């Protein structure tokens, strides 16, 4: 245990983690910088993560500052992330980045503070407790001069980052396995279709492949459970890392999750070891940290330079920022609403009112068997043999009114068989089965199955019954 947490080790893997973390959150900070006034300042509209009205007595809601101070703070955050990335006054930069990220993040849940922000805070805090600035950094250059000397770091902060990654995977797995709609692929399907966090074209394509969705859902949970267990096996460490990278790249391709995938890719660098880097970039000389007068003078000059640069950049940022600071007293434009739209809004137009009952239904499937949880119809949808049962399963959206469901089976001879029932508003599936056993009742030929809701046709499916 002592060796696990307190063995001295090369700071190069941590440096890599530092650079990756810095770059990812630098991108995030730059993207939001133009909107700093709107998102975080008293002149805009902060949306605190823990507003006092909802979380009384918890004191997790920072006070929003005036526009100018907010922009200054955000600019300082950008500077701190740049300097952390390049390893200049690394510990100070990480602490400053952590503090400002926490302050600003807690002011805006909607646009800023997500779970990847929390992971980032953990990373910044833990990295600030390491010597991640001891390699591939300005700090290392200033201290060691031209010699390639890296100062050793203790293992425990990196171990805690590894614990963090494992906790994220286990927590994600636990969340998913408790949801029945995860196992049948519906959670993934609707998440991919979501226009806020969902997928681009690849994600949308995946959402139309039910079997792939189920496999992807199960595969995700298996990975999230397997990684925490197998990553500690020396032979499996690299394959698991490769698998994890592939998983997150696939996530980035199929879903719009902001910087989440890249934050996790950065965090996974905690499992990269010195021997991995030695293969790629060669060895480095390691030495215990030394202290003498020259190092102290260099450090003082570096600190002063850092402070001056921070002040200059912050001032420049406030000057350049043209969102809100100059226009906060400008006129806000309110668009008029045309008559038709206002009529529609006031009438609260629903799919039922428009006769578009099919918009309460996400999909209607046909098959010769039902899935074990009764939510999917499987097997051939177009051809059935004598003795089979034709199962139809409709998946409804969450917000639907109570509906009178009617399934109508039109036989090959034109006669109809109906089955109707009332579907409650909180029920998400409508199913029916028609046994095709009796040749008198169900002669061979072409059939149609029509689904109606409140008398309106929702879907029609055709199939052939063969003897």
């Amino acid at each position, binding site marked *: 245990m002592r060796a696990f947490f307190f063995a001295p080790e090369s700071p190069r893997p941590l440096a890599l983690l530092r650079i990756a973390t810095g770059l990812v959150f630098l991108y995030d900070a730059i993207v939001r910088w133009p909107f700093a006034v709107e998102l975080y300042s008293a002149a805009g509209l902060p949306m605190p993560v823990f507003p006092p*009205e909802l979380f009384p007595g918890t004191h997790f809601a920072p006070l929003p500052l005036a526009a100018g101070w907010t922009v200054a703070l955000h600019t300082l955050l950008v500077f701190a992330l740049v300097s952390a990335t390049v390893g200049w006054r690394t510990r100070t930069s990480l602490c400053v980045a952590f503090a400002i990220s926490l302050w600003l993040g807690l002011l805006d849940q909607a646009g800023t503070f997500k779970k990847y922000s929390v992971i980032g805070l953990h990373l910044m805090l833990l990295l600030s407790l390491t010597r991640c600035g001891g390699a591939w950094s300005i700090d290392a250059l200033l201290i060691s001069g031209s010699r390639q000397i890296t100062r050793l770091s203790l293992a425990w902060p990196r171990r*805690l980052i590894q614990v963090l990654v494992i906790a994220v995977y286990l927590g994600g797995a636990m*969340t998913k396995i408790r949801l029945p709609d995860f196992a049948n692929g519906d959670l993934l399907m609707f998440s991919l279709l979501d226009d806020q966090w969902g997928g681009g074209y690849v994600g949308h394509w995946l959402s*139309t492949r039910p079997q792939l969705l189920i496999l992807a859902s199960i595969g995700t949970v298996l990975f999230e459970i397997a990684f925490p267990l197998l990553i500690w096996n020396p032979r499996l460490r690299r394959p698991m890392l490769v698998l994890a990278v592939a998983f997150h790249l696939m996530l980035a391709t199929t879903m719009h999750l902001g910087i989440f995938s890249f934050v996790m890719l950065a965090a996974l660098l905690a499992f990269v070891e010195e021997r991995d880097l030695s293969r790629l970039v060669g060895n480095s000389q390691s030495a215990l940290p030394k202290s003498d007068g020259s190092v102290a003078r260099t450090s003082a000059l570096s600190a002063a330079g850092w402070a001056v640069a921070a002040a200059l950049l912050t001032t420049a940022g406030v000057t350049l920022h043209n969102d809100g600071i100059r226009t906060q007293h400008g006129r806000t434009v309110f*668009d008029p609403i045309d008559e038709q739209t206002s009529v529609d*809004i006031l009438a609260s137009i629903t799919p039922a009112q428009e006769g578009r009952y099919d918009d309460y239904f996400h999909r209607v499937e046909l098959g010769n068997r039902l899935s074990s949880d009764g939510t999917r119809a499987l097997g051939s949808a177009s051809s059935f043999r004598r003795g089979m049962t034709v199962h139809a399963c409709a998946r409804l959206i969450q917000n639907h009114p109570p509906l009178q469901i009617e399934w109508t089976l039109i036989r090959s001879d034109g006669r109809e068989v109906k089955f109707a029932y009332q579907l409650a508003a909180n029920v998400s599936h409508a199913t029916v089965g028609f046994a095709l056993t009796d040749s008198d009742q169900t002669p061979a030929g072409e059939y149609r199955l029509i689904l109606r809701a409140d008398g309106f046709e929702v879907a029609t499916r055709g199939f052939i019954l063969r003897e």
Partner: protein
Amino acid sequence: MSRFHRLRQFTAILFIGSYLLLTGFFLVRHAVGDSLGHPLGYFWTWDMFPNYPTESARRWAVGETASGAYVKLLPNSAHRFHWGVHGDATRFDIDRRQLFFRQATVHAIERHNATTLDDPIRFVYLAEKYWPEKLNLPDELYHGFYHDEVTEKVYWASPAEEGEVSRRFYWRILEEVDVETDGRVIAWEPSP
């Protein structure tokens, strides 16, 4: 080992123990379905995708003026931050809590009435434009999956023939409120 190093090691052990304890504590709570309702839990609970929407929605605050005209109070030109696959979702669409929607609406009323003294806002509706998520599919994927002959699938501006309404989204009113002549809102009422 010097006293300083002993102290440093003790501090490290304390930090490691606390971190592991917090991680384990919240992981176990999450496992049994009892995520702590305290802000601290948010920093240690990894419950991404706890649920899913089946509709997409955009929120509007609609103001009715004294003259009977309707204006879109929210979102307005002051809300420039957008998110989403198409970059058109505002923070009111992302954060579904009514608290900020109302606060922003009150703010917007004040701004509107300050510049439109002769036609102030007298009534406000908090409304939601929504559509089933299946309509977010690109056309070719939608037709391939649903075998739908209908072409006016897309919720946003499908080109319409003159005189025809091309729309496949719907509206619901979440709340409504009277506004006093001085711009003060009375109690918010859920829409009947």
